[in-house]
C-alpha cells in the first residue's frame, strides 16, 4: 500500500516536526505522510540527526545542575527486554464498497471511534479532537462530488488516504500532502471518491463558529444552513 507521493511537506515543516514545535494536529498529518512516503522518511531522519548535533553543540549558559543520586535511582529500575506487544488497534476504515488501511498514527487516533456526519453534496465528515488549537477530521468525498469555489482562512492541511481529488492546482492521490494557506483559492472535486485526513488551524475563526464557512469541504453545508437562516 506504499505509494509514491507527489506532494510533500516543506523542509521547514519537517524541521518543525522533528523539533516537536508544531501543533498536534499537524504533527499527526506529517507523521501519517511520513509513514506513507519513503522520501520524507529519509529526509526526516537526516534532519533529526542534524538537530541532535545542534542540540549537543549549543552552548547554553544554563548552570550545570547537580543531579547526583538521580542516576542511581534510575539504574535500580528494571529495563525493558523486548518491545511491548502492539495493542490491537483499528487499522482499516470501511468505506462504501472497500476498506482503506490507515497509517498507524491515524489508526490509533481513529480507535476512539469515528462519528460520520453527512454534510451534503456527497461530503462526509468525522471530527477528531487531537488538540485545542486545530480542527482535525476525516473527510470522505463520494465519487462525483464537488465543492464550490472557496478561499481558506488560516491554513488547511490535507493528506490523501484513498482515491483522489483535483483542484485548479493539481491532482492528488494517496500519500499526497497538501498545504494551503489563506491566499489559495480552489474548488476540489473528486471523480472516483476520496478519503482524506485534514487539519485546519484557525482557532480564532473556530471560536467564532465560522470555521465551517471557510473549510473547503464545508461550503455546501454553509450554503444550506445560510439558506435555512434566510441569508
Amino acid at each position: 500500500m506504499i505509494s509514491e507521493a507527489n506532494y510533500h511537506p516543506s523542509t521547514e515543516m519537517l524541521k518543525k516536526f522533528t523539533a516537536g514545535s508544531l501543533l498536534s494536529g499537524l504533527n499527526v498529518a506529517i507523521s501519517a505522510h511520513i509513514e506513507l512516503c519513503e522520501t520524507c522518511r529519509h529526509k526526516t531522519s537526516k534532519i533529526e540527526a542534524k538537530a541532535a548535533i545542534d542540540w549537543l553543540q549549543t552552548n547554553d549558559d544554563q548552570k550545570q545542575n547537580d543531579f547526583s543520586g538521580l542516576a542511581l535511582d534510575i539504574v535500580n529500575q528494571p529495563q525493558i527486554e523486548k518491545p511491548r506487544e502492539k495493542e490491537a488497534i483499528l487499522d482499516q476504515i470501511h468505506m462504501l464498497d472497500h476498506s482503506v488501511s490507515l497509517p498507524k498514527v491515524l489508526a490509533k487516533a481513529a480507535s476512539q471511534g469515528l462519528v460520520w456526519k453527512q454534510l451534503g453534496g456527497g461530503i462526509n465528515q468525522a471530527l477528531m479532537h487531537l488538540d485545542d488549537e486545530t480542527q482535525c477530521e476525516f473527510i470522505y468525498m463520494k465519487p462525483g462530488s464537488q465543492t464550490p469555489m472557496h478561499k481558506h482562512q488560516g491554513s488547511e492541511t490535507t493528506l490523501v488516504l484513498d482515491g483522489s481529488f483535483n483542484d485548479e492546482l493539481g491532482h492528488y492521490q494517496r500519500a499526497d500532502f497538501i498545504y494551503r494557506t489563506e491566499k489559495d483559492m480552489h474548488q476540489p472535486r473528486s471523480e472516483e471518491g476520496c478519503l482524506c485526513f485534514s487539519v485546519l488551524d484557525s482557532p480564532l475563526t473556530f471560536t467564532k463558529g465560522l470555521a465551517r464557512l471557510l473549510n473547503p469541504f464545508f461550503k455546501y453545508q454553509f450554503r444550506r444552513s445560510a439558506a435555512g437562516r434566510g441569508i
Partner: protein
Amino acid sequence: MDNLAEKQFAVRKASPPGCTEVGMVPSVENNLDPTSDEALLVKVSNSKSKEAFDQLFDRFANKVFAHGMKIMRNEQMAKDLVQEAMLTVWQKAPLYNMDKGNVQSWIFTITRNRCFDMLRKQKRQSAVLSADDIWPAGFEDAEALSEAERGSVEVQISQIEKLVRQLPAAQQAVVEQIHILNRTHEEAAQFLEIPLGTLKSRLRLAMGKLRQSLGTES
C-alpha cells in the same frame, strides 16, 4: 526462525567457532571506540552496566535540562524532564537499534518525546496520541515484520550461501553468528558489540530478504 533457511544453515554449524566464513566481512562495530556514546549504550544494553549509564548520564543530563528550560521555561519541569528522559534511556537501552541512527539522535528524540508528553499533560490535552505514536521508533520495522513468513521450497545450500553473500556486511555478520555459529542472540550481540535490539532487527531484515529471494514468503 524454524524455517528452511535455518535448517540449511544448520548443516554448516560444524565449522569451528570463530572461523571466518567465506564472504563474511567483519562487522565494523567490533571496533567501537570504548569511550563513544555507542559503546557505553551497548554496555548498558548488554550487561546493564551502571558505570556506563553513569557516564552517559553525565554527558547528557544537562543537555536534556537545557532543552526542558528552552521549551517549558520552568526549572522544576526541566528537572522532571531529566528524570523522565534519562529513565527512558536506561529502560529502553536494550531496544536501541544503531541502524536507525546514532545514540545522540536517539537520546534527542527521547528527550523531545518525553517533553512533548509532559506539555500535553500540562495542557490537559487529548490522551489518545502520545509522542511515541507521532514519532514511532521505526517505520521500517513494521514492513520488515509483515514480510516475515514461512513456506517450504527445496533450495540448494549453494544458492543460500550466494544470497547470504549479497546481504549487507552487518546483516551477514549477524546471520553468521546465529545460523552458522549457532550462537544465542545474547552471545551474538556481545560478540559483535551491538545492542540486542540492533541484532534482532538486522536478523529479521536479513531473514526477510533471504525468504523473499528464495520465494519462501507466504
